């Protein structure tokens, strides 16, 4: 009995405040009902829902309401999905992420879901709607957004767009870590860094003098991958090829009329690069002994180091492999 009185007292004291919140919640609920109304064309319902939620969020009560941010994030995600799925630099998608993050930050339910019932005029009737606030759903939406960021990062991986790819990849990480703070990024880190390194290498090789900074950037990325996984075949092979090709490039770009002192320095540098390439090529070969490209790489490295016997050994292995195929 004592408990009951206490609850009534609380209810009375909070009536005015709660009513205002509920009024705002009604428009929030209306926005989401509208956003999901299959009787209305997607373009129309998402636009209207976005207008309602944007208006609603300007009210002081909504600003602190996790539910309002949740719905806003959801509707922005729907906007992105409806109008901008091909826009790899979509501002709306970024905003969706920010709003969902805010919803989680404002949520005081400690990860528990709760329901909200709202009444409002909809299609000429009084609609009574029960909405679930479920942090798990928010995390799912964030993962969805994260996946779109990741896939877009991949499609932007080329010499012209790689900065946008990096931005998308960073947003992917942000989304995933908000959605799941213990999310294991290792596999994605390896995948993305390996791929980005090949872009950097392409830029470097387009002009090894003017784009020389990309050599170090490529090397750094492969070494980061190997720090995560020493047995990563791609990073081992690609790093070996990076060093080896650069060594050959230095010689090929040498002018036959270059002074002998310059030539001596170049051969010093290229020899050092061939020596650096060797352990990574050997590792790649140990990991996948039948990969022809690694055998070719080893043949080239030993040839460039003037170790003819070993170069011929790999040449024979390539011939044997070709014969077997």
């Amino acid at each position, binding site marked *: 009995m004592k408990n009951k009185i206490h609850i009534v007292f609380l209810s009375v004291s909070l009536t005015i405040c709660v009513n205002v919140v509920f009024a705002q919640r009604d428009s929030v609920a209306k926005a*989401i009902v509208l956003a999901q109304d299959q009787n209305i064309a997607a373009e129309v319902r998402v636009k209207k829902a976005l207008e309602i939620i944007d208006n609603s969020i300007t009210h002081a009560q909504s600003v602190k309401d996790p539910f309002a941010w949740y719905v806003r994030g959801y509707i922005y995600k729907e906007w992105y999905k409806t109008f901008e799925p091909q826009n790899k630099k979509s501002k709306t998608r970024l905003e969706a992420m920010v709003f969902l993050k805010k919803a989680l930050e404002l949520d005081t339910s400690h990860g528990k879901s709760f329901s909200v019932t709202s009444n409002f005029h909809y299609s000429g009737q*009084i609609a009574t709607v029960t909405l679930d606030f479920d942090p798990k759903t928010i995390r799912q939406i964030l993962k969805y957004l994260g*996946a779109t960021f990741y896939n877009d990062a991949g499609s932007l991986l080329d010499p012209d767009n790689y900065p946008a790819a990096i931005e998308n990849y960073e947003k992917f990480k942000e989304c995933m870590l908000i959605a799941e703070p213990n999310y294991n990024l290792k596999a994605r880190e390896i995948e993305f860094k390996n*791929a980005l390194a090949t872009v950097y290498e392409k830029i470097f090789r387009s002009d090894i003098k003017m784009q020389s900074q990309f050599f170090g950037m490529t090397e750094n990325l492969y070494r980061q991958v190997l720090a995560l996984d020493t047995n990563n075949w791609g990073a081992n092979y690609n790093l070996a*090829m990076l060093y080896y090709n650069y060594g*050959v490039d230095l010689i090929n770009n040498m002018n036959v009329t270059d002074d*002998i002192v310059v030539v001596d320095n170049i051969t010093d540098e290229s020899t050092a690069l061939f*020596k650096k390439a060797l352990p990574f090529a050997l590792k790649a070969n140990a990991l996948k002994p039948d990969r022809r490209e690694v055998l070719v790489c080893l043949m080239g490295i030993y040839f460039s180091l003037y170790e003819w016997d070993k170069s011929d050994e790999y040449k024979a292995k390539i011939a044997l492999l070709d014969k077997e195929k």
Partner: protein
Amino acid sequence: MRKYIIIAITLLCISADWVRMPVFQDPNNSNSKIKATFIYNFTKYIDWPEKYKEGNFVIGVLGTTAFYNDLTALLTKKSVGKQTFEIKSYTGSESVSGVCHILFITAENSAQLPDVLKRMKGKSTLIVTEKTGMAKQGSGINFVVENNKQRFELNKTNIEKYNMKVSSTLASLAIAVE
């Protein structure tokens, strides 16, 4: 109207197949290029007698080798002073005749060195070889590999006795052989 709203989420698969394979650079030409560049530099750091400073600057290659083609491609239209390079191919020591400023003897033809030395006696021809021990057997310069790097031995006596002078810069980069 009473409705229970469940926010539907479309799951999206992460897909990635982004890694591009690097293109292998053929090392064969690079070895030729290093040797050709060294040979070009020998013409700068070795001084021939006055009477050799007229006409074409002749570089002979003894033995059938791809190096002849590489050298021709790299030095055609280049010159040393007023002398234009002329690259000649010799099949054997007996075919070497006339003025030849530099004679490169391939490793496979090293056995012909003694005969070449007899035939070139009294001529200012720089003999360049590429086999271990040749600098001690009469060649002026012998290409060798040391610590996985292309280097060259220089036998100053074998050069200067044919009235050619070796600059100190060239000597400092060479492995001296007596």
